[in-house]
């Protein structure tokens, strides 16, 4: 039996393939948009994964440290370490800022970690080059997306840091690459004012007669010293001991230490449900519209392709071809078009996804869903075309 669809495709394969490729690029855009959405959610999740924490201890009544500012004294971790079920606790600070390197500057999230050795909470989980921080000052591990190279010197506020390690996929919930530096330096970077501000503050304090009394030498120095300390951090990351349920460990800290504690599940809710909710909805809405538009375009393309062949179909009818055969031909062509479109789309999306400045995550599930969707849409669109084809009057083959 000769495949009617095959013969027809053969007849004008160029047109068929190019239409398929065009369709494919459109499907590629849709898949990419889904990837952008997944990437946003993944950025948020990867932030939590990378911190290596089971619990986040933050300031009372805040949604910190990612969604809201949170500030704790840096000795809080000592008392938390003593709570039942706590295996490790580490201070951490987060600050998004511009990091200078030579002439350029890069937007990055500065993470202050305790350089306590590998596997401590907050440290980058894996590297792609270099080493972890070993000195307690002036070393940095940067995400490769910052563009920094090993051995380069970068400037954060007043100090210079040597890049000793590179990592990958360490991003903030906003997708900014992270730069890990020792905690003490990060505290300084976060809370230290610029030199001019410090000098002016000193001048103001010295001008205040309450602090600069002739009868009490040393008072001014003491006041100035007290102004330039910064014993604050943003959160304490806690790893619980094996066998403990995080919520079990969190409750006593909430109750007795009067601090807010979030578990992994709650943190994910905050990040995805609150922090990136609007942006994600925006992308999601766009994705829905794009999918509808794509479906409409696919339907119209198949419909017009069929209409272009109306005379041939009339001939087929005239020579007594069964309706089933004609419908099958149109259906097969539509599905073939869909197949080419999906393949081209998937390939295109995979190739251009890494070029995006923010992470684009192409999930297998999305691809399969897209595949099914394309087929359903093609089938539905071909139904329209089949209806039009079957209504054709065989007489048209001879007329006009």
């Amino acid at each position: 039996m000769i495949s009617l669809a095959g013969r027809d495709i053969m007849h004008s394969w160029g047109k068929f393939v190019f239409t398929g490729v065009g369709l494919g690029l459109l499907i590629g855009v849709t898949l990419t948009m889904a990837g952008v959405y997944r990437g946003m959610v993944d950025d948020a999740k990867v932030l939590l994964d990378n911190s290596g924490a089971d619990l986040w201890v933050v300031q009372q009544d805040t949604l910190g440290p990612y969604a809201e500012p949170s500030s704790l004294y840096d000795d809080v971790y000592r008392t938390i370490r003593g709570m039942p079920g706590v295996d490790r606790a580490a201070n951490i600070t987060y600050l998004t800022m511009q990091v200078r390197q030579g002439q350029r500057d890069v937007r990055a999230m500065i993470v202050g970690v305790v350089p306590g050795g590998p596997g401590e909470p907050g440290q980058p989980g894996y590297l792609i080059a270099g080493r972890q921080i070993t000195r307690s000052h002036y070393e940095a591990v940067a995400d490769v997306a910052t563009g920094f190279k090993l051995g380069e010197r970068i400037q954060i506020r007043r100090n210079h840091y040597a890049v000793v390690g590179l990592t990958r996929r360490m991003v903030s919930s906003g997708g900014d690459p992270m730069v890990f530096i020792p905690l003490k330096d990060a505290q300084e970077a976060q809370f230290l004012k610029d030199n001019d501000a410090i000098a002016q503050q000193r001048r103001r304090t010295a001008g205040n007669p309450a602090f600069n009394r002739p009868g009490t030498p040393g008072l001014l120095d003491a006041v100035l010293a007290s102004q330039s300390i910064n014993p604050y951090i943003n959160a304490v990351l806690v790893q619980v001991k094996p066998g403990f349920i995080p919520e079990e460990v969190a409750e006593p800290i909430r109750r007795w230490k009067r601090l807010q504690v979030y578990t992994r599940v709650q943190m994910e809710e905050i990040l995805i449900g609150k922090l990136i909710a609007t942006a994600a909805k925006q992308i999601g809405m766009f994705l829905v519209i794009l999918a509808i538009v794509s479906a409409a375009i696919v339907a119209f393309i198949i419909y017009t392709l069929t209409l272009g062949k109306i005379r041939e179909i009339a001939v087929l009818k005239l020579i007594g071809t069964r309706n089933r055969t004609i419908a099958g031909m149109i259906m097969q062509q539509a599905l073939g078009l869909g197949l080419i479109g999906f393949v081209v789309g998937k390939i295109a999306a995979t190739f251009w996804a890494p070029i995006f400045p923010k992470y684009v995550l192409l999930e297998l599930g999305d691809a399969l869903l897209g595949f099914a969707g394309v087929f359903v849409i093609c089938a539905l669109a071909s139904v329209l075309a089949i209806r039009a084809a079957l209504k054709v009057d065989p007489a048209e083959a001879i007329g006009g």
Partner: protein
Amino acid sequence: MKFLSINRRMLALLAVVVPLLALLIYVALRSGPLASIPVTVTTAESHSIAPALFGIGTVEARFTYRIGPTVAGRIKRVEVQVGDRVQAGQLLGEMDPVDFDDRIAAQKAALNRGESAVVAAEAQVRETLARKTYAEKQASRYEQLLKTRSVSEESVEGKRQEIQVTEAGFAAARANLGATRQEMARIRSDLDGLIQQRANLRLITPVSGLVATRNADPGTTVVAGQSVVEVIDPATLWINVRFDQLRVSGLRTGLPVQIVLRSQEGIRFAGRVLRLEPMADAVTEETLAKVIFDALPKRLPPVGELAEVTVEMSALPETPVLPNASVQRVTGRLGVWLIEEDKLRFAPIKVGATDLDGRVQILEGIKAGDRVVVYSQRALGPRSRVKIVERLEGVSP
């Protein structure tokens, strides 16, 4: 002919579809869950590592001499400026003496008057002595005359009484002289005291050194103990270093160090640990130590300059050593990803000391010669497929 033409079209179609399918398969294998993760691998080697310790400190002067008055007063003059070199005993400034000089003049006048009083008292002693000698002679003469019955008993009695009177007068005069001399000594001591107090108003440096600060200017009123000028000895500069308590085990006095000053980056000065402070900083969780230069830099760093100090500790016995990038924590356990016959296995380990180049001693769980994953493109899991590469993508050589 017809068959051929169809065949040619078929070939052309295949020429488009086959590469497309090939690309799809390539894409499916390269990304997504089927893709293998590129990793780099290293072999654990038995090495001895020399851990080092890194700390931040500030340049400080070992001794700071805060020179100021011992009583409250107004500054009359300050002779030196910041940066001046001064010699031990040099006058740096002076407090306003107010009425000190007048009081000294008064005491001096009192002393002069005292000296005259002494002369008067001495003369009085001589006079009474003369009276006494004359009275004695008279009495002895009358005694002789009494024996020859030339004078009456009564007149002899009178002479004897005269002796007693002149003796008493003489004793009184001598006592008066003693008192006057004592008074003189008192006035002299008072004067000495005043002169010394006056000298105390002069601000004199006890050591040779450098004027570090000049805290007050002439006319300023300062309280007792407040410093007017601070002098340091630049030869005794040291660095007050703070080390993170996490890593200080093994820090001892006498260990060699390398010092980098913030102003002279790139130059490493040799030095050693002079002393470990018995009091650590409880707030910042740092251990304090003092480090001295083996030879002072030619250009002296200002006091308060930031310095980076690297302490070189003695080498440890040989153990398997791995880069710290290979050590990871998976489900709460510290370990490394071993490659055994191209399969991935997570091996829990126990780590020892680390050096500053990021090499970690592995005490348990790994033996020399084991192949271990160092860098990976993504986080690894026990079922990850890996592809061993020389260098990961995106990393320049």
